[in-house]
């Protein structure tokens, strides 16, 4: 089974909020939650797939109830502990520090901590996810079928990027992106295991059957080779 974040196609969510909103952060704590995530990432103790998975692992009731940046700060806290950078005792102390129930201990800044003067370059660093290797099994125009079950094949409940709504469906390869880091492996510290990545187009009618708005419409997803098999 997939997790609560896998919501493409779900019914019941109602109208889309604040469509013309131009405000970047709606409160100071939201801005700090984002900045903490970015500064923490610079410590190099986890990768982007691990941080996505940390948010996906929130209990479904928390995922549904938390606002966006509450998910980020909670996932980040869990990641600090699962990676061993902070202990459960550190988190307990953090709770006391937040309410001023204990005195902070001054610290030397770690060598790895992101410095203000390094922010601009850090955010503009070019670090592609494409890698050498992995021959493409499919070409543009090929018909492919996705795995019938969206799940991580190595780790039960693990990270994967095949949405449930597109599982077990037939589509057409429309772009080859080259080999990219494979999230199902990278999210679990099992190596980058790069694989060919494809943009695959599915007709709305094939995905949604009678619920499709128009047979002319389509959905394109980026899918790794091991999610796909040849449709003959």
């Amino acid at each position, binding site marked *: 089974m997939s997790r609560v974040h896998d919501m493409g196609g779900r019914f019941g969510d109602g109208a889309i909020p604040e469509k013309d909103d131009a405000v970047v952060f709606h409160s*100071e704590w939201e801005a*700090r939650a984002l900045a903490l995530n*970015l500064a923490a990432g610079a410590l190099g103790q986890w990768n982007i797939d691990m941080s996505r998975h940390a948010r996906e692992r929130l209990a479904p009731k928390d995922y549904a109830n938390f606002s966006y*940046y509450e998910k980020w700060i909670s996932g980040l806290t869990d990641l600090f502990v699962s990676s061993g950078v902070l202990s459960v005792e550190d988190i307990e102390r953090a709770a006391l520090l937040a309410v001023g129930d204990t005195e902070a201990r001054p610290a030397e800044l770690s060598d790895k901590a992101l410095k203000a003067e390094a922010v601009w370059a850090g955010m503009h660093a070019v670090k592609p996810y494409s890698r050498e290797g992995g021959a493409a099994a499919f070409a543009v125009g090929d018909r492919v079928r996705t795995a019938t079950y969206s799940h991580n094949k190595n780790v039960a409940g693990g990270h994967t990027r095949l949405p449930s709504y597109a599982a077990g469906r037939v589509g057409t390869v429309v772009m080859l992106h080259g080999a990219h880091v494979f999230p199902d492996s990278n999210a679990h510290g099992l190596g980058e295991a790069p694989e060919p990545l494809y943009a695959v187009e599915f007709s709305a009618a094939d995905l949604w059957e009678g619920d499709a708005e128009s047979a002319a419409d389509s959905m394109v997803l980026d899918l790794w080779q091991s999610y796909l098999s040849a449709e003959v």
Partner: protein
Amino acid sequence: MPHDHDHPHSLLPSDPELRVKALESILVEKGLVDPDALAELIDTYEHKIGPKNGARVVAKAWSDPEYHARLMTDATAAIAELGFVGRQSEHVVAVENTPEQHNLVVCTLCSCYPWAILGIPPSWYKSDAYRARAVREPRAVLAEFGVELGADQAVRVWDSTAEVRYLVVPMRPEGSAGMSEDDLVELVSRNAMIGTALAGAVA
């Protein structure tokens, strides 16, 4: 491993402001986070990196046929020519609206978005409603945003499931033929580059 039994975040105060303060406090105490860097990060994404970058890309593509060709062939490189590179824009593909096709971008699994060219995604893009509905009923979503499709336009929805980011190049509006690149920038809204708006009308 998933460690589903293990959610240390529940040890922190439930009020989000205090939750952030708690984590920040322990990280600063341990020297793992520099408060000056946090301020710099916030300033960067609040004021310096935003949808004006993407609007510049689109306006240049409208104005310069050779740039347009480079953008449609290798958007990552064409966008890098303007200095817009880095986090969450490592691999960019430009998709162009035409009288036959309207493009719409979503991330159903999280909130993937081309930060270097559009900044931090707006709340609506990250909302459950948009993530759930954009793939199943894009026409209803577009109508909710006030986008009227042409009679012959198919909708193509791009679900950002990998590290490839999609930039919608809207159709150049009627009556903009003589406009400068700088003036064209003003016609390109953030939503138009996600696909939930068209380019602005010429005044």
